[in-house]
């Protein structure tokens, strides 16, 4: 038993199915603070660990709406208010001509909020994370699947949880120090 505070217990699985089943059982057992790690998105895994609220669509919608309204208002303000320019006698507020730029700015803002929203909600960039202390964890980006039950979970108990993870078929269970 080390004296360093513990981040959690990490169990390794061979394939996505085992990981998904283990995550479900852990959730049924009452564990909430946990996460699965896989080299590609495993369908249903996020739901299995109790992650329901994916706010990405909302972020992108808000970004897109801001871009849309902002893009149109910018053109209206510039062409009709700040710098009215008579071009071939067309109205200053020539709304059909403003469609294109409005659309482009909408897509631009929605796209930027998709990437930066994803990074922000995921807490990235994150230069340090305790999981990287575990040597085997580098295979999470190759061909191994991991489940980590975190020490901050109220039901967490080093011995209990280790036994529980072993019972799920996880091997190479290791303690993750902070």
């Amino acid at each position, binding site marked *: 038993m080390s004296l360093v505070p513990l981040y959690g217990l990490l169990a390794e699985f061979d394939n996505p199915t085992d990981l998904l089943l283990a995550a479900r059982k852990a959730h049924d057992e009452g564990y909430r603070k946990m996460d699965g790690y896989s080299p590609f998105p495993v369908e249903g895994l996020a739901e299995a660990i109790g992650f329901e609220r994916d706010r990405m669509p909302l972020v992108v919608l808000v970004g897109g709406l801001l871009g849309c309204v902002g893009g149109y208002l910018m053109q209206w303000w510039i062409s009709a208010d700040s710098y009215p320019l008579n071009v071939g006698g067309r109205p200053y507020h020539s709304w059909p001509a403003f469609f*294109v730029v409005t659309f482009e700015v909408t*897509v631009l803002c929605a796209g930027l909020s998709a990437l930066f929203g994803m990074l922000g909600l995921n807490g990235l960039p994150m230069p340090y994370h305790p999981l990287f202390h575990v040597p085997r964890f580098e295979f999470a980006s190759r061909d191994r699947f991991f489940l980590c039950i975190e020490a901050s979970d109220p039901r967490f108990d080093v011995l209990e949880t280790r036994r529980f993870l072993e019972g799920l078929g996880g091997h190479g269970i290791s303690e993750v120090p902070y």
Partner: protein
Amino acid sequence: MAPGHTFATITDKISSIVLTRPVSLGWLMGVGFVALWTFILLFAVSYLFYQGVGIWGVNVPVGWGFAITNFVWWVGIGHAGTLISAILLLLRQSWRNSINRFAEAMTLFAVACAGLFPILHLGRPWLAYWLFPYPNTMNVWPQFRSPLVWDVFAVSTYFTISLLFWFQGLIPDLATLRDRAVNRYARTIYGFMAMGWRGSARHWKRYHTAYLLLAGLATPLVLSVHTVVSFDFTIAIVPGWHSTIFPPYFVAGAIYSGFAMVLILAIPIRYFYGLEDFVTMRHLENSGMIMLATGLIVAYGYIMEPFMAWFGGNKYDMYQFWDRAHGPYWWVFLALISMNVVIPQVLWIGKLRRSPFWLFVISLDVLIGMWIERVVIVVVSLHRDFLTSSWGMYYPTKWDWFTFLGTIGFFFLCMLLFLRVLPMISIFELRELLPEAEVKVEP
């Protein structure tokens, strides 16, 4: 994908190209050659900055010349990359997973080359930032009724969104490279770019949503970009430009030339890097079929243009089409029809469609043909319009050629460097294609 692969073999095979494969003499020679052309580009551009656009063959009436031809051509090439990465993703065409990464890189580099031309063509290229609406002491703003301003927004948005999409796709693969790298510097650099990605289920969930949303945004965007480019022409009243068929016909032409460039890149890459397992004959054949289909749409455009001119009864439009075939540039038009419409029809033959060599040859033909199409649209339409007194001829100078060929060198330089420093095939998306990736329980 060829059978017999596992998560580990896919990962190791693709990451080893970047991490452990020694730099080969062929690659170095290739880089040397295209770097030479990049220097020629820099030289031509420097001379342009010093002397002005007069070094090009542009003059009244042909004010647009090669610069706009090349711009349209390069933007068009980019379109196939977005089509593969975004539209085929939404359509669940999973075969696209092994070609999307380098096709997206192709888009980025092609759009970078494209963006160069309108800027160089400005006359005072160093003032290009005036095109953007920013508060300035002159108190002037861009004129938003002009398609040329729309173009600034369309192309810069397209470049940005392509970059975001490409970078997002790279994040998990950068994490893979970080974990595989033995070299300390490589590990640090990839680790920096991967931003601490650890493949968490929550992260993947948001990642996946963001990826699909970006694809959904990129799909109308890619169709809009060449549409807006075609507005540069159609909003003008020049005979041969002022036509409603331009937007769809430009987009089809863009995808046509884009897939030709995908094949030009994919065929040597899979051969030299031994990636036949991932970029299979099926990918090449599908690309060939898309080329054939979009080529037919382009051919339909060629038929409809003179038909509409005749049907509309406008004598200037009709003269424009007579001039294309019989005027001083008749040989350009002949080359266009044979290279874009006649020769690609051999793709109907299955044997040729499944031969990398012939696909390469036909793609080369299509790329040149599509470039000629833009010459016909820009140069031939402009050289004779309404008044005979304002007719003229356009002759490209050596600086026109240096700038054009220089961007090709620059494009391939970027591609060659990309192949060596980033995974050219999306590793995590290939893992998803394996049967082992399937979860065998009820959701």
